[in-house]
C-alpha cells in the first residue's frame, strides 16, 4: 500500500480554479495525488466536493488544468471507464435487487449482457454481499446499501475510486468491515480517495491526507510529516508520571520548553525543540522508571493538525 | 468562546394545555400569510368582493336615489338587480378561486412536513395526532370559508344595511343561512380531500395534481353514467354538482340550473359521506405516522 514512485500521480491539478458566479469554490489549486489510499478533508465549503466533481468530469475547470490518470476527465470515456465513484447520497430505484442495480448500471455503461453479469457478480463478491445480492435494496441495512454503492463503483474494475463519506450511518461493526474493505482495495492496487469529516476514521484508513480549506490547498502528505512542518506551534507532549511535580520542575528550565502544566499525574510539556525533550525523557525513563510511565505526543494526530492549520490561533489542546 | 457563557432559562412547565390545535392553525396561517402567491390569490378574491360591494351600492343607493342622474340607467340594467341569485352567484364564482387557493395552501401541508422530518419534532412535543389534524384542517377551512361564506355574509350585511326596506333585511337573514350552508358544503370536502391527498402522496405538486385529476375523473364518471343510463340524477355523484344543488336549494332560487329531481338532502348526504370517508382515512394514516415518526 505504499506509494510507488515509478507510477504517475493519479490526479494532477495545476492552477485549478472553479467558480460559480462570485463564489470561488477552488482557488488556484496545484496538487498531485499519488497512487494508494488518500484522504481528502476540509471544513464544509472548503471545495472538497467541487474538487472531486472536477476529477470526475462533472464540472469543467473555470481555469487551469485537471488531469486524472493522465488525461482531462471531462467527456472522456477512456478515463471515466477507469474511475469509480461512490457518492454520498442514498437513493436507489425501488424494488431493484442489489445485483440488478449493479448489472443494469454496467449495461448502461456499454457492457454486453454476459460481461455485465460477470462484472456484477464479481463486484458483489468483492464487497461480500453475494448472499444478499438478490434481495431488494429496500430491505438492505445501511451498511449493505453503502456496500452495494461501492460494488457499483468497482464494477468496471477501476484503477481509481472515490468514496464520499463511506462510513456515514454505519454501526461500529460495519465500520470495521468498511475499513478492512478499503484497505483490501488499496492492497489490490486500486487507488482510493476517501472524503470524510470524521478525522479519526481517516486516520485508521490511511496516513496520506490532502487538506483543503477555503478553496485552497493547505497541506498534503503524511500526517506526521505535516506536523513536523508546522513549526510555529510548539509540540505538546504528555507524560504520565508517578512524580509529576519533580518531572515538571526538571523540564521547567530546559531550553526550548515553552510551558509545563501538571494535572494529577499528567504532565503536559509544550516545547519548541521536541527532539531534546524526548531525548531527556528517554534517559529519565531508564534512570528513574517511575518518573516516566507513559509518553504521548498529544498533537501528532489529524485532529490537532487540522485545528492548527484551519485556525489562526491555537484554541488550546 | 462566548457561546457558552449564555444559557437558556429554566421552565417549570405550565398546566396541561387545552386546544393545542390552535397553535398549529395559527402557525399555518402565519406561514401562508408570508407567501406572495397566496396574497395574490386572496387579492383576486378581494377584487371580486369589491366589485360586488360596488354592485350593492349601485343598486341600493344610487339606483333608488331619484336625484342621482345615473339612477334611471341603473334601474333598467338587469345586471345590477340584487336577489338571492346574486349571492348564490357570488359564492359560486368564488368557489373556483377558493379551490385553487386551498390547493395551493393545503397540498403541501402534510407531505412537506413528512419530507422535512418535522413529524418527529412535532410528535415529540405534547401534541397528539388529532391536534395536528384539527389545526391543519381548521387553517384550511378558515381560508376557504372567509373567501366564500365570510365575504358573502359581509355582503349580505351590507345589503341589509343599505337597503331601505325591512323585507330585504329579512331576506338577507334567510340568505345568510344559505350562504353559510352553501359555503360550508363546498369548503368542507375540499379541505378534507386536499389534506388527504397531501397525506397520501409524497410530493406537494403530485398531491395537487392528484386532487385535480380526482375531481376531473369524478365529474367525468358522473357525466358518463348519466348520459349512458339516460338518467340525469347520476350527476349527483359529481361533488361539484352535488354542492351546487345544495346551494341552489338553500338559496331557494327561482330558476335553478342544476336539473336534479332528487331532494337536496341526498346531495348533502353524499357530500357528508365523502367528507367523512376522507376524515377517517386521514385519521388512520396520521395515527400510523405518529408512531412511525
Amino acid at each position, binding site marked *: 500500500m505504499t506509494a510507488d514512485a515509478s507510477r504517475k500521480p493519479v490526479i494532477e491539478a495545476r492552477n485549478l480554479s472553479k467558480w460559480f458566479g462570485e463564489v470561488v469554490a477552488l482557488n488556484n489549486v496545484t496538487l498531485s495525488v499519488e497512487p494508494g489510499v488518500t484522504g481528502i478533508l*476540509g471544513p*464544509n*465549503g472548503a471545495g472538497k466536493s467541487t474538487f472531486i466533481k472536477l476529477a470526475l468530469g462533472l464540472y469543467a475547470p473555470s481555469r487551469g488544468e485537471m488531469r486524472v490518470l493522465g488525461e482531462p476527465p471531462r467527456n472522456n470515456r477512456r478515463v471515466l471507464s477507469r474511475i469509480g465513484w461512490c457518492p454520498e447520497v442514498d437513493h436507489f430505484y425501488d424494488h431493484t435487487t442489489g445485483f440488478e442495480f449493479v448489472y443494469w448500471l454496467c449495461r448502461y455503461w456499454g457492457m454486453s449482457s454476459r460481461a455485465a453479469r460477470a462484472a456484477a457478480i464479481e463486484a458483489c463478491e468483492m464487497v461480500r454481499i453475494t448472499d444478499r445480492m438478490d434481495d431488494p435494496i429496500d430491505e438492505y*441495512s*445501511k451498511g449493505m446499501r453503502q456496500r452495494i454503492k461501492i460494488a457499483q463503483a468497482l464494477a468496471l474494475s477501476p484503477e481509481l475510486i472515490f468514496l464520499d463519506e463511506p462510513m456515514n450511518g*454505519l*454501526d*461500529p*461493526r*460495519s*465500520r*470495521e468491515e468498511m475499513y*478492512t474493505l478499503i484497505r*483490501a482495495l488499496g492492497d489490490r492496487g486500486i487507488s482510493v480517495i476517501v472524503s470524510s469529516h*470524521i*478525522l*479519526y476514521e481517516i*486516520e485508521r*484508513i*490511511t*496516513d496520506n491526507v490532502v487538506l483543503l480549506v477555503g478553496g485552497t490547498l493547505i497541506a498534503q502528505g503524511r500526517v*506526521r510529516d505535516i506536523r*513536523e512542518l508546522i513549526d510555529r506551534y510548539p509540540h505538546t507532549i504528555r507524560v504520565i508520571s508517578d512524580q509529576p511535580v519533580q518531572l515538571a520542575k526538571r523540564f521547567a528550565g530546559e531550553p526550548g520548553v515553552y510551558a509545563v502544566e501538571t494535572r494529577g499525574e499528567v504532565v503536559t510539556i509544550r516545547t519548541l525543540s521536541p527532539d531534546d525533550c*524526548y*531525548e531527556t525523557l*528517554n534517559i529519565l*525513563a*531508564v534512570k528513574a*522508571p517511575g518518573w*516516566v*510511565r*507513559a509518553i*504521548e*505526543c498529544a498533537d*501528532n494526530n489529524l485532529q490537532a493538525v487540522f485545528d492548527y492549520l484551519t485556525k489562526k490561533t491555537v484554541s488550546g489542546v | 468562546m462566548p*457561546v*457558552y457563557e*449564555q444559557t*437558556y432559562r429554566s*421552565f417549570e*412547565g*405550565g*398546566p396541561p*394545555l387545552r386546544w393545542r390545535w390552535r*397553535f398549529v392553525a395559527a402557525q399555518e396561517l*402565519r*406561514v401562508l400569510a*408570508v*407567501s406572495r402567491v397566496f396574497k395574490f390569490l386572496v387579492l383576486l378574491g378581494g377584487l371580486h368582493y369589491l366589485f360586488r360591494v360596488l354592485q350593492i351600492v349601485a343598486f341600493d343607493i344610487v339606483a333608488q336615489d331619484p336625484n342621482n342622474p345615473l339612477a334611471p340607467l341603473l334601474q333598467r340594467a338587469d345586471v345590477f338587480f340584487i336577489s338571492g341569485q346574486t349571492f348564490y352567484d357570488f359564492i359560486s364564482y368564488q368557489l373556483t378561486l377558493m379551490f385553487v387557493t386551498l390547493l395551493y395552501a393545503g397540498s403541501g401541508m402534510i407531505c*412537506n412536513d413528512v419530507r*422535512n*422530518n*418535522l413529524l*418527529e*419534532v412535532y410528535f*415529540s*412535543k*405534547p*401534541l*397528539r395526532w388529532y391536534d395536528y389534524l384539527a389545526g391543519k384542517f381548521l387553517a384550511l377551512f378558515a381560508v376557504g370559508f372567509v373567501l366564500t361564506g365570510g365575504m358573502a355574509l359581509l355582503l349580505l350585511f351590507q345589503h341589509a344595511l343599505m337597503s331601505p326596506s325591512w323585507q330585504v333585511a329579512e331576506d338577507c337573514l334567510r340568505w345568510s343561512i344559505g350562504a353559510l350552508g352553501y359555503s360550508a358544503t363546498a369548503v368542507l370536502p375540499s379541505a378534507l380531500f386536499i389534506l388527504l391527498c397531501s397525506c397520501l402522496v409524497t410530493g406537494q405538486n403530485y398531491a395537487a395534481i392528484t386532487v385535480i385529476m380526482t375531481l376531473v375523473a369524478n365529474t367525468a364518471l358522473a357525466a358518463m353514467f348519466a348520459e349512458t343510463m339516460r338518467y340525469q340524477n347520476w350527476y349527483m355523484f359529481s361533488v361539484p354538482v352535488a354542492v351546487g344543488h345544495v346551494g341552489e336549494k338553500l338559496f331557494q332560487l327561482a330558476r335553478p340550473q342544476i336539473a336534479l329531481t332528487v331532494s337536496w338532502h341526498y346531495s348533502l348526504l353524499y357530500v357528508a359521506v365523502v367528507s367523512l370517508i376522507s376524515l377517517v382515512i386521514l385519521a388512520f394514516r396520521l395515527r400510523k405516522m405518529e408512531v412511525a415518526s
Partner: protein
Amino acid sequence: MAFVSLNNLVVEYDDFRALDGLTLEVEAGAIGLLGPNGAGKSTLLKTLLGFLRPRSGTASVMGYRLPKQALEVRRCMGYMPEREVSSPRVSAVSFLAYCGRMFGMTRADALERAHEVLNYVGLGEARYRPMQEYSTGMLQRVKLAQALIHDPKLLFLDEPTNGLDPDGRLEMLALIRDIVSRRKVTVLLSSHLLPDVQQVCQYVIMLNRGQVIRHGPLQELIRPLDHRFEVGVRPGEESVLETVFQQAGWGFRRMTGNGHFDVTLPEGADCADLFRLARQSGVQIRHCVPVKTTLESVFIDSLEENEPETAHARV
C-alpha cells in the same frame, strides 16, 4: 430517583419483538446508548415518548408511567432526531417559538426563550432567515435548540454530530458536555461514533436484539491491557526498532495509520525495560502508552459474544 426505569419491557412492532424483556435503570449523567442498527434503540425511544404500547412490563420516565402519562413525559423530555429537520419557509426563531408554544408558553415567553436557546447553541444572525438557506451545521443546531427550549431534564440525542465538519463536531460535543455538567440534564446519547461517546459519556448501555447485553460505567469497560504498549519512535528509526523487537523475541505488529508498534511485553518486563532496550540501539521513543481497550473493541466483542453465529472474521 431513576430518570428512566424499565422493567422487563416487551414491545412488539409490526409483529416483530423489538424489545425483549428490557430491564434497565438510568441515573443522572451522560449515558451512551449503543447498538447495531435494528437493536431496538428507536423502538425504545418511541416507547419512552409514548407512541408504542408495551406488550408487557413497565416503563416510567421521571416517575411518570408510560404510556398513560405520555404527555407529561413529553413535556420533560427533549428529542433531537437523527434525520435532517427543516421548516423551509420559516425562520429559526419562528420555528422555535412555535415549538415553545406547544408547551404552553405565551407568545412573548416563547419568543424570548427561542432567542436564549439559539444563543446557547450558537446560531447567530442567521436565525432570522428562512431555514431553507441554512447549512447542515446550522440545521443541527436548530435541532438541538428545539429539544432544549422547554428546559427538559432528560434529553435524547440521536447521532447529534451527523453531517458536521470537524469543527462543528467538536463544538457539538462541547455543547453536550456543557448541557450535562452545567445544566444538570440527563443525556441519552445514541451514536455509532464510539470515540465521540467515549468523550462525552460516563456510563454506557449496549443493546442488541432488544436486550441489554452490556452496561456499566465507562471507566470499567475501558481498561488498560496488561503488558501491551503502543510505541512510536523518531521518524526514520522504525526499522531499527523492528529489528530490536525481533531479536528480543517480543510479539509486535505495526499499526496502520500512524505506523506505531503494538508490542506485547513478556512477563516480568515493564516500561523501563522497553526504554532500556530502545536506548541500547539508539532509538528515541516518542510515544509509549499502554494499550487500552477501546469502546469499539468492547462493543464488537460484546456483540460477538451475544451472537456467536454471526461472528465476523476480522483482519
